């Protein structure tokens, strides 16, 4: 495992490396796993479609294909455990219990979004469900996760922090720094690398000298294991044990989940770096389909019951779209909200100075609206990806296919 392999070999290792089938959990649990994975799948498909319609702007990173890694992990976490992730975390938030309506509204940049439209697709966050955020800086979440784990440890609480990040993040300085610190301070944290074989368009063996990522933190005192990230039950079993190690024994560990994203890195990815056949091969072991098939084969659920779950996912997601579409745009005079804790002070007070209302854009609430709108309109003219109009133009040719997508 420690020798570098080609992508095709890596993929093979994953396919062949599947352990003997794990026993299915009880029917309610099985149903819930399938329901959550199906909801995420449908949500992501629809998010891609809405992006095409220019309802969502910026970048859009879809996790289609990675549902088992997400749901396998969250299904063995306690409600008071912390989860922190990357810019590909619509599904992680939903799996933690965040209402898909609020996630979709955030993609739409509306007031009912998880961050009130300030974060967007890459920055979903919900404190109530202890989903501590999606982040746009690769590797930036690792120290944050250690800090959250430190806060639990410091306060004598037995909550665990799970930090999910991509294979690309294992090359950042934060990876080494945080692994060392977490092992040194015996922090209750589980690091889970969602190895989907590509850091954007650079394949694993082209970006990491050590391609067995489960070994990559050993030198820092954080042992690791590899798990088939396409198998929700395998992920559950492994992550549950590693959460236990963190909670009960204060042993931080690294779990490498071997998974695959069917779509491009973002919706603006022409996917010149991989063959269509490779995508199709991974789709053969689709995490949602294989699990549904098994539930039917073993008589846990009937085909009708599985179909009901799909219909429920469809309803949930379409309601989310409807909700997001109906949610208002943020008021322009909210531009400075949440920047500082300022008590009774005027929003934006610290931004320059409250006593110069006519000099600086957005300085007073009275002035903020007009000036912010001017700035917004001017900004839109310069914006590249995500600029209004671009999606509409490209979308008209074929609204089903993301820019550059070729599934």
């Amino acid at each position, binding site marked *: 495992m420690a020798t570098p392999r080609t992508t095709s070999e890596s993929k093979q290792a994953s396919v062949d490396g599947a352990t003997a089938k794990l026993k299915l959990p009880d029917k309610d649990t099985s149903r819930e796993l399938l329901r959550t994975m199906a909801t995420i799948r449908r949500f992501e498909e629809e998010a891609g479609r809405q992006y095409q319609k220019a309802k969502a702007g910026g970048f859009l990173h879809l996790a289609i294909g990675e549902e088992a890694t997400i749901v396998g992990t969250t299904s063995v976490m306690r409600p008071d455990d912390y989860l922190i992730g990357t810019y590909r975390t619509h599904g992680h938030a939903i799996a933690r219990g965040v209402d898909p309506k609020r996630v979709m509204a955030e993609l739409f940049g509306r007031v009912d979004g998880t961050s009130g439209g300030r974060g967007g697709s890459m920055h979903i*966050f919900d404190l109530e469900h202890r989903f501590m955020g999606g982040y746009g800086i690769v590797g930036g979440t690792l120290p944050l996760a250690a800090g959250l784990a430190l806060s639990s440890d410091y306060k004598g609480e037995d909550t665990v922090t799970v930090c999910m990040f991509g294979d690309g993040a294992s090359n950042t300085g934060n990876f080494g720094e945080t692994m060392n610190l977490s092992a040194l301070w015996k922090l209750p944290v589980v690091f889970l690398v969602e190895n989907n074989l590509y850091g954007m368009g650079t394949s694993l063996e082209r970006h990491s000298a050590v391609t067995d990522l489960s070994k990559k933190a050993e030198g820092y005192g954080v042992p690791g294991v590899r798990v088939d990230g396409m198998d929700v039950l395998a992920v559950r079993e492994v992550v549950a044990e590693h959460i236990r190690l963190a909670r009960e024994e204060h042993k931080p560990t690294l779990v490498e989940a071997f998974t695959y994203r069917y779509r491009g890195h973002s919706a603006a990815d022409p996917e010149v770096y991989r063959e269509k056949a490779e995508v199709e091969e991974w789709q053969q072991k689709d995490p949602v389909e294989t699990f549904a098939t098994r539930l039917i084969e073993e008589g846990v659920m009937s085909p009708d019951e599985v179909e009901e779950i799909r219909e429920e996912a469809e309803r949930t997601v379409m309601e989310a779209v409807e909700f997001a579409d109906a949610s208002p745009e943020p008021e322009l005079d909210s531009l400075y909200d949440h920047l500082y804790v300022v008590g009774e002070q005027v929003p934006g007070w610290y931004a320059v100075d409250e006593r110069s209302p006519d000099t600086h854009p957005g300085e007073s609430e009275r002035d903020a609206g007009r000036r912010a709108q001017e700035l917004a309109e001017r900004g839109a003219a310069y914006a590249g990806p995500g600029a209004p109009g671009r999606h509409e133009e490209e979308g008209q040719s074929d609204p089903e296919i993301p820019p550059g997508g070729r599934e």
Partner: protein
Amino acid sequence: MGTVRMREALRDAMAEEMRSDENVFVMGEDVGVFQGAFKVTEGLLDEFGEKRVRDTPISENSIVGVGVGAAMGGLRPVVEIMTVNFALLAMDMIVNHAAAIPYMFGGQVRVPMVVRMPGGGGHQLGPTHSHSLEAMFVQIPGLLVACPSTPADGKGLLKTAIRDDNPVIFIEHESLYGARGEVPDDPDRVLEFGDAAIRREGSDVTIVGILRMVETAEQAAKTLAAEHGVEAEVIDPRTLRPLDLDTILDSVRKTNRAVIVEEGWPHGGVGANLAALIQEQAFDHLDAPVQRVTGADVPMPYSKRLEQAAIPHAEHIVSAALASLEGAR
């Protein structure tokens, strides 16, 4: 009221806040067993133990990042970065995370963290340990920036910083750690941010200085009075975000002249920002262009002779003040 050094005043601020709030803790490189690279955390490990005074590996970005995460988890970390230059290794955590998180998550979570760091030249520490990067932090929305020049201010402002729910960049000056001053003993005394101090009253020219340049400006003011009959008003903003622009503008409206002094670089500096604000809001009151006295536009040199040439001195401030008064007397 007792006379203490700046480093002791800062240490006392941390100790008092740690005594009153168990969620306050200190971490950084060599803050514990070593007692702090500049001995600012001296004695804290003995009193509070390893849980609350945490020596860290040399991992600046992760140290600050752990602080951000811990703050999000409900603690109040006080992170020490050994010198301001090392904070550049942590800029991702400071700018992309600490400053952005409250805003980009719609106010759901706060980052009540203080990042302390000393800067400034004068000790021949060369181009990687001597810089003055206040302007870099002042530019970031989401951060508060404090820069105390006296032990009393150091203590009062640091206590406020620790109690504040916003991320605070707390900039200290290496040359001021040994400076003595009167510090009130009252543990409840805090100093609000955004409240400038008038160090010396005068009617002829306003001199604004920060950190060690406050003392240098006061020296210059004495020379101006004794040798040139010029009465300078010396103002120390004490915090740069929020900025007490009122006090500065009131002074400029009185003196009609302004000189801004900092050790940092001229381009995009604290002085550049202040000069812009003054001319925007008190243009009609200005009788002369705003003068800036800054550090030389070079990485800080090692040679004592060159280093001193790169740092503003009282005579530079005197010259700038006289230039602003040219033709007026």
